[in-house]
């Protein structure tokens, strides 16, 4: 049996399902070179959940779409992304298609727009089943109903015949998950999968995802801008800014011990979360300014213009992502000290 099928063995031997190394993505827009992702490396193992956190435009979605091969034509992708040892970057679309939906699957943000409005949901799930396996129509139909049941949609054989607009947001997202699971992928990427949902539904969907992960022994990547989500559900966390990883650590280390966060950006994100134990009417410490233009990245640390403790070296030289403490990497010249108070 593949060592990757046993999460404990995998953790012991350090075998990762997905290994991304120095991923870079760029494309031309309006005559300018946009560098969306600038050297990203991470790994995920089966049974583990990796959260990729960042603002809009940080490159988190682009990185994962690059791995899946879902970027528009004309995008340049370099670096390496190995799924169970098979290199994905550089494959032609028809080769990559064999993995897409089969080994690795993705769930998207807005199920209202991500499902075909004129096709019944059951048919869309069945289509996912037949995409990679030579299965008869009736068999695909049965499997689709089973998948709908798996994602806890009540009365799945009824729901099979309905259209997306007839379902609630949470149900639609379950359908998306069912489609993603059709061929039992090893890797599931949830791209802001719960952002468009209300909080209660959000929790339900996250629970579902985690249960399914355990049941199917999948590696799960969750992309989000919500630190709270990462804290609650992720095993490892990667924080991205301006196309690079700026902090990387197990979730427990980052969010558990107060002050374990080193990178100023992550610190700022944490501080911006409203808290009940602060006195009433305290002004929320929001990070001012905006992320840099990916077509005109400044020299030095990309966060420097917005950082509270910018120094000269921050403006001239870009800090490298290095493992300063075991299991915890960050890229900052003047990180928060352990136990630093804002």
């Amino acid at each position, binding site marked *: 049996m593949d060592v990757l099928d046993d999460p404990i063995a995998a953790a012991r031997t350090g075998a990762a399902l997905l290994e991304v190394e120095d991923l870079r993505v760029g494309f031309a827009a309006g005559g300018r070179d946009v560098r969306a992702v600038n050297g990203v490396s991470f790994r995920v193992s089966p049974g583990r959940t990796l959260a990729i956190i960042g603002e809009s435009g940080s490159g988190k979605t682009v990185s994962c779409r690059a791995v899946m091969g879902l970027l528009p034509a004309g995008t340049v992708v370099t670096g390496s992304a190995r799924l169970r040892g098979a290199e994905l970057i550089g494959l032609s679309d028809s080769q990559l298609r064999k993995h*897409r*939906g089969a080994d690795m699957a993705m769930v998207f943000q807005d199920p209202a*727009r991500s499902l*075909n*409005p004129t096709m019944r949901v059951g048919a869309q799930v069945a*289509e996912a089943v037949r995409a990679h396996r030579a299965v008869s129509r009736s068999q695909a139909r049965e499997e689709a109903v089973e998948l709908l049941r798996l994602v806890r949609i009540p009365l799945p054989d009824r729901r099979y015949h309905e259209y997306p607009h007839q379902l609630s947001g949470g149900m639609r997202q379950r359908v998306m998950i069912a489609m993603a699971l059709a061929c039992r992928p090893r890797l599931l990427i949830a791209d802001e999968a719960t952002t468009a949902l209300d909080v209660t539904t959000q929790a339900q969907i996250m629970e579902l995802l985690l249960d399914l992960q355990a049941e199917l022994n999948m590696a799960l990547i969750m992309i989000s801008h919500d630190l709270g989500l990462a804290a609650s559900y992720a095993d490892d966390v990667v924080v991205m800014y301006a196309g690079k990883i700026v902090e990387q650590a197990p979730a427990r280390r980052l969010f558990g011990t107060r002050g374990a966060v080193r990178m100023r950006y992550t610190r700022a994100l944490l501080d911006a979360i409203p808290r009940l134990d602060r006195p009433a009417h305290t002004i929320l410490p929001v990070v001012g300014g905006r992320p840099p233009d990916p077509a005109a990245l400044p020299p030095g640390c990309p966060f420097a213009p917005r950082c509270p403790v910018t120094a000269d070296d921050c403006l001239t030289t870009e800090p490298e992502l290095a493992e300063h403490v075991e299991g915890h990497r960050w890229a900052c010249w003047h990180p928060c000290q352990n136990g630093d108070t804002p």
Partner: protein
Amino acid sequence: MALAQQVQLQGGNGGPRDRAGRLAGSPALRLVGRRLLAALVVLWGVTFLTFAVMSALPNDTAQVLLGLHATPGQVTALNKALGLNRPFPVRYWHWLVGVLHGNLGTDLEGASVNSQLAQHLPATAELLAYALAGSLLLAVIVAVLAARQPNGLADRLSLAVSMLGLSAAPYAFAIFLIVVFAVKLGWFPVQSNSLGSGSVLSFLQQGTLPAASLGFPLFAIYTRLLRADLVEQLQREDYIVTAKAKGLAPWQVLIRHALRNSMFSLITVVGLNMGTLIGAAAIIEALFSVPGIGSELLTAIGDKDVPLIEGIVLVFALVTVLANLAADLMYAVLDPRIRYGRSTS
């Protein structure tokens, strides 16, 4: 999309679970009802307008019938006998009543307008059907090929050909077709006078050139529209990304997902174009000697055969209004958001 938005704004609710009940309360049916009413108003308006225009123009029907040597006295007498000197509202009322009873009167030659129409309608119907079906089919094929690779060879070719189709006058194109394919190559006959009766083979033989003349500009419009819509869907819509993420091949994504959704705008355009299509058909029929109601109309106008003209225009208007209505309805039927509304879940 306007229809879908309209319905959702009215909060179309699914109604009771039972399917018939759901249909009765469905927004689709209410929409259909409203559209039908509007169509009736339009139909009435067109007939009234036709009648008004015909009456407003100097009308010497009696003179024509009696010939050049008739005395003014004879003309007046005939006018009175034909009822042509009664006031406008009276004449209109009589005509309207007749129409509602299905009687369109008699033309100047004494034949019943109804029978004239019945005789000539099949040819026009065949011609229109051939032109529409052919241009739609070709348009879908070409648009799909073009959208597969935007700015590729198929795309550029299709754009060039469509531009030609849009810019060429149907009558000029028809003449060109006749010269090349009928006269020089002899593949098709020059005249198509047995369209509307006759075998499938003769239909194909005689119908192809006239249908091509009519269909070329149609094909151009449909192709341009469909291609633009397909490319837009492929580039902007999220569900396309989902389809790709499933691992579907580009053709499957294009046909099973994008094309499905693009058909909507295409259908509306087909309906809207019916009015101009019929007008163009008249000229083509004259060119190819097709015995349809279009060429009948031209002769009727030349003869100043007012009853016949009114009858034919009524048919034209009816077809246009029905086509528009049909397009609207098909939209409602095909778009599941309108057909089913929101269910309580």
